[in-house]
């Protein structure tokens, strides 16, 4: 009866739209403008990397996309709808700090989001095992967080983010505490999963090499107040290889970002 509804342009799952978003924190001493008039469009299935100097508002932006914090002004839509509340069916988050539950084992931490959805014990365990294997923590499932090294905790946290399989994945410096080799392996793993599932990924990192290596698009931010200063497309072909790292195209993209960062830090 209402064919128009079907004709109207339908925002596909995974699109992110950020429109004139601002965020002001009230602190005891003064008001802090963390983000100022940020606009951004991420098409479904894109791998977008967010870079910018410490304190420029990357984490804040991610929290807003996840529905964990409300913007002071502007609008954000995920898959066509605003996100006033976190919605694990639309968005998954890997936090900057591992924030594991100390009373659960690594395994149980990874199972946590599945348990919330009432998935059966066996299923949960199997999927958690798989995710832990993916991050190289085979055999560490029974350990509690305080028995893990810093990098291991971060990897558990990544596994926890991956296991829930949402269309949009927000990752806040997930590889910061990892050594270069693990970091590369995990980056490749992530790209593989991304390519296979068609997820939209927003990824924060401080490593420019990592940024260019992983991204379809790199968004560069400047601090105080947080603004987008550049938005580059990375035209390198997929799958990415380590050889590309030493290529000219790669170098010039990296340099361009580097100049922004240097200026604003």
């Amino acid at each position, binding site marked *: 009866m209402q064919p128009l509804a079907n004709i109207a342009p339908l925002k596909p799952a995974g699109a992110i739209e950020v429109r004139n978003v601002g965020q002001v924190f*009230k602190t*005891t001493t003064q008001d802090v403008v963390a983000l100022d008039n940020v606009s951004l469009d991420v098409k479904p299935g894109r791998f977008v990397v967010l870079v910018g100097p410490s304190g420029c508002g990357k984490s804040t932006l991610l929290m807003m996309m996840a529905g964990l914090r409300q913007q002071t002004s502007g609008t954000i839509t995920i898959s066509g709808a605003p996100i006033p509340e*976190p919605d694990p069916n639309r968005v998954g988050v890997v936090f900057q700090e591992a924030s594991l539950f100390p009373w659960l084992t690594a395994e149980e931490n990874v199972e946590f989001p599945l348990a919330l959805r009432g998935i059966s014990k066996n299923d949960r365990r199997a999927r958690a095992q798989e995710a832990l294997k993916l991050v190289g923590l085979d055999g560490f499932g029974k350990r509690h967080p305080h028995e893990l090294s810093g990098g291991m905790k971060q990897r558990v946290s990544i596994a926890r983010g991956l296991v829930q399989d949402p269309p949009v994945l927000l990752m806040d410096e997930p590889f910061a505490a990892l050594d270069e080799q693990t970091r590369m392996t995990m980056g490749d793993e992530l790209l593989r999963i991304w390519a296979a599932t068609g997820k939209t990924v927003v990824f924060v990192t401080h490593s420019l090499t990592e940024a260019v290596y992983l991204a379809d698009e790199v968004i560069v931010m400047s601090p105080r107040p947080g603004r987008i200063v550049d938005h580059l497309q990375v035209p390198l072909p997929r799958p990415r290889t380590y050889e590309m790292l030493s290529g000219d195209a790669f170098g010039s993209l990296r340099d361009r970002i580097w100049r922004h960062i240097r200026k604003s830090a």
Partner: protein
Amino acid sequence: MSAASVRRLIVIGLIALWEILPRMGFIPELFLPSLSSTLAAGWNEAGEYAHALAVTLYEVAISMAFACGGGILLGAVVGSLPRPRILIMPMVSSLYAVPLVILYPVFTVWLGIGSESKIAFASIYGFLPTMLATAAGIQTIDPQLLLAARSMGATLSQRLVRVIIPAAIPTVLSGLRVGGALVIVGVVVSEMLISSAGIGYLISRYRTILDSPHVFAGVLLVLAMAVAFNAAIKWIEGKAAIWQTGTRAGQSAEEIAPAALQPAT
């Protein structure tokens, strides 16, 4: 309507009921004399009540110092040292399980029937919960913070004062509240049981001769003490507010996004 005014309305309502219910004969005067006759009774014997109040306050003040000061300090020490904690805590909580009220008459044999026995009873009554609660609160402290303090050469007492107590401040405050309240209860109850001075004594004396207005005049004084004690705690909480920033108790409404403030059931 603001929370404070709702609260004020409730208080006013209770006061009005106190006057109206007995007046209308819904409750016999024996159980609840009207507020006005209570006040009149108290006023007529103002001198007697003033003297009793002085005695009770003196006992409360001394017991408070033992119960709260000692309880928090010892709780913090015991809670932060694993060995004594494992050894002592179960014994202490078992000790508290001995129903002291029953033994109170025998108690007076050794301590006399003057203030000493009230102070001893109220101190123990308030001390143990304060100590237990504080020690339990200490266990929720992030061990990393203690590690950091240790690495900077903090002595045991410095760790106690600068790390353990501030980190456990919500627990410590509630320990203070519980301990202080129990001290008031302990003093009044022991006075009611066996004594020849103090508000509790007046209450039970007038009760024995069914003089309910005078009984409730005494109760009113106990209520006044509770109000004063609450005001004092509030003042301390205000002072401690700066310490609480960053903990849940101290965060303003905007900090924790709105959803977290919804009642959970």
